């Protein structure tokens, strides 16, 4: 304990080290605030939409309730859904800035509505967000390198190493204390602003703990890597260059190459084909006998088979039936597309097992529920809600029940469930494993050099 206090005081006397830790603290604070601002902006947008949507529905209600035609109600009424940011989204904004977090759907074909994009500035999305995850994954390793690359070699180059090691009982205790104090400094620079952010956002305690575990594991990886490189006993400059090269490889090059490899291994052309297939299937209905569309519909919805037969005149139930058939025809492509997105995410996770930066990035976004899986989960919730809408409107349409003002109030409402997030066990394990691996290699190589 005395040794730790002594080294802490020593560290606080080093201007460059203090400056580095203050800089990291400031960057983290800015990133956390930027994340909180963005989350607040998204929450405000969701809140703003509530009353606007209500007045939109009210206007449709006024018009439809005059004729009480359930078809008009189903056709003209939009139902809002939203995906509010989780209590940790401020730390890792993820895909929330390139995919919609509010979407309105009608009881018509879903596949034509589900992939609607958001009004976003693509040039602003291009460089990626400046959030806590960015500071941790990209910037924190640079600070680790700054503080650890010359831990021992710096003393050697200043000619103090022998005297220093001779003046303490056990050199390993000295280096242990120095290492601990520096690691603690960096950890606090990252954790303190995060705590404030978590407090403001009301983050669940278990998630705060999980984020801290991720931060610790990632810092540990870089510190161990620094120690291993330093064991090769070269100059501080050579250490810094080797470590910076490792940083560039692990945080820039490997993920970029991984992205190219994954996207070309799992091409997602279904997206664009999906739109065309669904559209063609829907519109074909106008050119084939109505009974053909109805038969296809009854195969999946036998409960409406015995309702009144279609006459010669236009009937909304036929219209909604062929929309549903269109969705079902596009179903395979849709499932493939969904599967493809998830598979890409799964492969990036596999890459994360051997690339700690990727693992850390993915782990934080998993916890914050801002990863592609969360986006798919939102789509699944919309899909389920859309099913409810259909089940709500179909009895009116098929049983020719009038749709009055009171019926609008009976329509199902989308209940936004903040995504829960889950423990990124495998990813965390990957970071720990890589740390152990690097440490192990360093240990073995160090012994060979010594012997």
């Amino acid at each position, binding site marked *: 304990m005395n040794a730790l206090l002594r080294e802490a005081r020593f560290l606080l006397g080093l201007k460059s080290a203090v400056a580095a830790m203050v800089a990291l603290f400031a960057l983290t604070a*800015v990133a956390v605030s930027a994340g909180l*601002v*963005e989350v607040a*902006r998204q929450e405000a*947008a969701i809140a*703003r*939409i509530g009353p*606007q949507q209500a007045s*939109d529905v009210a*206007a449709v209600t006024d*018009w439809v309730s005059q004729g009480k035609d359930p078809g008009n109600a189903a056709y003209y009424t939009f139902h809002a859904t939203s995906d509010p940011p989780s209590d940790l989204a401020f730390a890792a904004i*993820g*895909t929330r800035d*390139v*995919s*919609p977090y*509010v979407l309105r759907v009608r009881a018509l074909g879903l596949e*034509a509505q589900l992939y*609607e*994009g958001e*009004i*976003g*500035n*693509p*040039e*602003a*999305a*291009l460089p*990626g967000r*400046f959030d806590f995850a*960015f500071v941790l994954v990209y910037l924190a390793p*640079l600070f680790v390198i700054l503080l650890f690359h010359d831990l021992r070699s710096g003393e050697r180059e200043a000619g103090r190493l022998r005297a220093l090691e001779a003046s303490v009982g056990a050199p390993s205790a000295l280096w242990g204390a120095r290492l601990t104090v520096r690691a603690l400094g960096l950890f606090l620079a990252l954790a303190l602003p995060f705590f404030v952010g978590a407090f403001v956002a009301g983050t669940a305690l278990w998630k705060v703990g999980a984020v801290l575990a991720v931060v610790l594991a990632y810092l540990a990886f870089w510190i161990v890597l620094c120690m291993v490189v330093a064991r090769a006993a070269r100059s501080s*400059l050579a250490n810094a*260059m080797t470590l910076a*090269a490792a940083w560039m490889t692990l*945080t820039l090059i490997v*993920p*970029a*190459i991984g*992205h*190219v490899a*994954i996207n070309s291994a799992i091409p*997602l052309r279904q*997206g*664009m084909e999906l*739109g*065309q297939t669904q*559209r*063609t299937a829907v*519109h074909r209905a*106008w*050119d084939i006998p109505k009974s053909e569309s109805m038969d296809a519909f009854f195969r999946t919805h036998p409960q409406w088979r015995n309702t009144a037969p279609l006459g*010669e005149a236009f009937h909304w139930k036929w219209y909604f039936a062929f929309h549903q058939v269109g969705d079902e025809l596009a179903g395979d492509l849709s499932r493939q597309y969904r599967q*493809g997105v998830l598979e890409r*995410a799964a492969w*990036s996770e596999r890459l994360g097992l051997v690339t700690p930066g990727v693992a850390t*990035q*993915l782990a934080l976004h998993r916890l914050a529920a801002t*990863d*592609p899986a969360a986006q798919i989960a939102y789509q699944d919730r919309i899909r389920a809600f859309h099913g409810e809408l259909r089940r709500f409107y179909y009895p009116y349409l098929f049983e020719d029940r009038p749709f009055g003002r009171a019926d609008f109030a009976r329509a199902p409402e989308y209940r936004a469930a903040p995504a829960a997030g889950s423990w990124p066990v495998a990813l965390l394990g990957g970071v720990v494993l890589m740390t152990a691996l690097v440490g192990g290699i360093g240990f073995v190589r160090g012994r060979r050099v010594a012997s």
Partner: protein
Amino acid sequence: MSVILSVTRNELRHLVRSRVALTGLILVALLTFAAALTSNAYQADQAGLRERLQHAADQDFAAQPNRHPHRVVHFGHFAIRPASGLAAMDPGVEAYTGNMIFLEGHRQNSANFGDARQSSLLVRFGQLSPALVLQVIVPLLLVFIGAGMIAGERERGTLRQSLLAGISGGALLSGKALALGLAALAISTPAFGLLLWLGASGGARLSAVGLTTLGYVAYLAFWTLLIIAVSATANRSRSALIGLVGAWAFMVVLVPRVAPEAAAALAPLPTRVETDIAVQRDLRSMGDSHNPNDPYFAAFKQKTLKQYGVTRVEDLPVNYRGLLAIEGEKLTSSLFDRYADQAFGAMEAQGRVMDALAVVSPTVAIRRVSMTLAETDLFAYRRFLEQAEAYRYDLVQRLNRLQATAVTAADDAAKSKNAAAEARSRISADHWQAMPHFDPKRPSAADVVGRAVPALVALLLWLAAGAVFAARAGHRLNRSAA
């Protein structure tokens, strides 16, 4: 001059004989090569795919049977964004924008299936492209091999020895800068090769190829001068390295990421849902064609009757429903345009805020130059959306005119109740085949170049600043006690 070349030769010999630097150079050169290759293959694949999809959409449209024109308005069409000439060099915002729009009556849909939405989070680390390598990775490698070029000689004492041999500080610095610059060119060769190839194979305009090359050469020359100047000024190579890595992290990584946060705060964007609701609200306040007592459409009816010199709708020589459809589309479309202009206005305001940060980061400037010339920037995307919207409007109005002229009012009124009338309301499929195809026009070369010029000037100013810094550092070298 020959003295400068001697320094350059010696420095290059040093690079080749020190294995670490050579390995780094070879690896990054390979990375550039891989980036050029994969990016080019991806873009070629995309170009083919999009051409096929557009063709398929055109065929689907033309292959429709005899139909009521309003059915065709809802059958709609697809506009697919063609790949741009230099996208393989710099894909820009391509991954973040949708590439396909469903065009239909009374609705303006968004461009869907952007790559970023369907990719893993890895894309947020930056897409591997020649642009990424040249903008981000090459400067960092140059920092590593260049930080010690002069500071290291100062530490070893050979700097003093060289100065005492009679070479001037300026000449020494020029020789070193030339060596570092040559290394930079060597590792960027695959990217420049790709540029040339794209120009030669006809996919890209020569003006864009030339200016993109100029931009990147200026950018890399700036880094070369900055690195050498800092190395000449620093006492130790360690402090030169730390300072330069700091400058790199600030200019290349930090500023471009912080810029959007500042921009979003200064010019917020509405969500699509809000815009949709606003459009519906405005439409309702303008007029409701379903409502016979609506003042706007009552006035329209009077105007139309007067124009044709009749007193009853039934006496009109054309199908009044078609005229209503034309008028309705005009109303909705003007609203779409207004809201789209607002959104793009806000985005462009954001863009100006982000571009202004070129003052503190040359990376911001080269990105603008590169994306603009590659036609993968926001402007090019907006142009696509606007041309798609113009095409949609023209197509829908052509169909509405067909409804007015080729479908009788009586059949149109009876079609949902009477099968015979419905059959008569269908018009010949020849009409669909005669419709124009979506053929987006590229902006003129002068327009593209004009928009790249401010950032190019900013880049050249950075280069000039680097040159001044280097010249001063060279001059100081003469005086320094080394």
